[in-house]
């Protein structure tokens, strides 16, 4: 199965019942599978007029009670930014898949890239929190799609599933679980409609979300709003909201996913993610075969960045190699945490994949 197909399967397993999208290479297989499979489970699919509308439609669908997803690539991801910000502001769960291709602009539609790491974090205007996950295999594409839905629901936030053309189009064997056994996060509203406050700040960081048409008549807006959703300019209403929505993601431990393969006494580490993480693992094996000790850190959650884990890694090594298929994006974050002196960047942004040799050479330099 392809990575893109595995994402669609993961979404279905997680309970996704609505997909709205617009065709774009190299993400289109996600839409094709969803259009075929959703009706079989009673779900709905629509091909919208553009990516702006797709993003809007999935938010509308979720407000109506269906777990929703869209998938796109660079140019479409740019168009979705406006309503990704809306989902963050209005705290509407949704999953956005970005199968990265080489940009900027139309770039090279069939070439892979990791050029949207910063856009995934800061693509929409204004300060906001967001979750960005990045799989390294077909099996992980499935697992991360499930994870994306559950985190999105649990924290009422858009989640970006940031994959790339290589992982998306790569085929690997995968054993899928029985979908009924897959864990699914569901909102439970216990307050009566009269008591219900969709955005209350004083009872946990994530107030449960009521769906439209269930007796909870409330207001949702992209304006700063009070606890019941009405627009406000009062600082005593804006500040607690801002604190809560920042805290709910910054303070959550279960969002931070990463894999480590450490060797005692290693003074060099490779930190990578996505398709490049596969190259990094290959480089690690080559180095270890030569008797060199090396640590491998694979980030699966890119945002919020697993800061503490990387700090700990930095304490034990002299050098962290950060290979990425861009001109240095996640490296900026690693440099911020561990200092520029320890970071060695390995970059390629021409559509080609980074080779293990490039990483080995960087380790030896």
């Amino acid at each position, binding site marked *: 199965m392809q990575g893109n197909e595995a994402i669609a399967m993961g979404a279905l397993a997680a309970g996704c019942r609505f997909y709205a999208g617009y065709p774009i290479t190299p993400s289109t297989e996600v839409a094709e599978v969803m259009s075929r499979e959703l009706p079989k489970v009673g779900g709905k699919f629509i091909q919208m007029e553009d990516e702006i509308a797709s993003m809007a439609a999935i938010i*509308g669908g979720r407000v109506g009670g269906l777990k929703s997803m869209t998938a796109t690539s660079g140019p479409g991801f740019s168009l979705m930014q406006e309503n990704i910000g809306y989902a963050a502001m209005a705290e509407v769960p949704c999953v956005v898949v970005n199968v990265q291709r080489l940009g900027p602009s139309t770039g090279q539609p069939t070439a892979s890239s990791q050029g949207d790491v910063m856009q995934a974090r800061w693509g929409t205007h204004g300060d906001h929190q967001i979750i960005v996950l990045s799989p390294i295999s077909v099996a992980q594409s499935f697992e991360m799609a499930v994870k994306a839905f559950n985190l999105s629901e649990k924290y009422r936030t858009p989640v970006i599933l940031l994959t790339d053309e290589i992982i998306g189009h790569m085929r690997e064997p995968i054993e899928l679980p029985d979908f009924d056994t897959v864990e699914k996060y569901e909102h439970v509203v216990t307050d009566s409609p009269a008591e219900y406050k969709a955005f209350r700040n004083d009872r946990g960081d994530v107030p449960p979300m009521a769906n439209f048409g269930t007796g909870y008549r409330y207001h949702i807006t992209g304006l700063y709003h009070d606890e019941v959703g009405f627009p406000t300019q009062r600082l005593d209403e804006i500040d607690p909201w801002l604190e809560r929505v920042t805290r709910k993601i910054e303070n959550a431990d279960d969002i931070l996913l990463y894999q480590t393969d450490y060797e005692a006494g290693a003074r060099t580490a490779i930190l990578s993610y996505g398709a490049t993480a596969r190259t990094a693992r290959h480089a690690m094996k080559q180095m270890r075969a030569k008797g060199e000790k090396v640590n491998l850190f694979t980030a699966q959650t890119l945002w919020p960045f697993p800061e503490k884990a990387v700090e700990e890694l930095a304490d034990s090594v002299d050098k962290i190699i950060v290979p990425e298929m861009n001109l240095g994006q996640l490296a900026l974050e690693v440099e911020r945490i561990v200092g520029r002196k320890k970071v060695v960047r390995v970059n390629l942004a021409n559509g080609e994949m980074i080779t293990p040799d490039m990483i080995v050479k960087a380790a030896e330099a």
Partner: protein
Amino acid sequence: MSDHILSVHDVDVNEGQVPREDWFEASSTLQHLRKNKKFPTIWCSGCGLGVVMGSLIRAMESLGLDNDNVALVAGIGCTARMPVYMDYNTLHTTHGRALAFATGLKIARPDMKVIAIMGDGDALAIGGNHFIHAARRNIGITALVVNNAIYGMTGGQYSPTTPEGMRATTAPYGNVEPPFPVCDLAMAAGASYVARSTVYHPLELDKYLAQAISNEGFSLVEAVSYCHTTYGRINKLGAASDMMMSLKENSISKSAYDKLSDDDREFNTKIVRGVLQTKKRPEYTKVYGTLVDKIHDEAIKPRNYGGH
């Protein structure tokens, strides 16, 4: 009405008509407004939007709709602020995108009445693409477009419905672009119900909105309004009352229009009020829902992708 309010509006207490004590409780229309925190509205006094809001409530009330089963979806602008005052499921979205959000919501909840409330800039400039595609799909959404021919909230810039030659803050020498005829656009794109009236004719709006909401497919009601604060001031069209009266003088009912000679019809410059199109076309969520049911049934039980 308190003396304070009257004095703010420079009205003598003796001149003002003092409403009855139970004015709020006695009005069934007002009972559909939100009762906490949201008043007064952000609209300028004299604005036609209040008339449209009243018509919309009366239309829904006449149909006996359950407020829980109605979603009001709006974009950005003066008109798009309407839902916040109304006691229904209300979604205030991004500029131009009301119909795209509404499409997702309608697909998720085909049983709900979904009404998209937009101004002319919202619906036809930034949201023009969504407008024609919602009409093409004939999805069961009522689009209420309040057309005041200007961007009011940002201070009076020309919109896609500003008549040629009229001034705006971004057309200081007069607008050189031809306007979109809102209803013609919807009719050409496939809307199954299209009607137009003005804020001078609220009873017509009541009726057309009720018909639009009852229609299964995509409906458009164009409510022609005015903006005395920006457009009226820049073009020296007088006070709100003058602009309201000009809607009376410069509009003609469809039945009267139909009786005109061919020549008179060709040179008519008045706003034609009436039901302009009704079409029997299959509604999108019905068609797709039937398909989904069929495929779901054929799948007997959801396939086990475990594949053993």
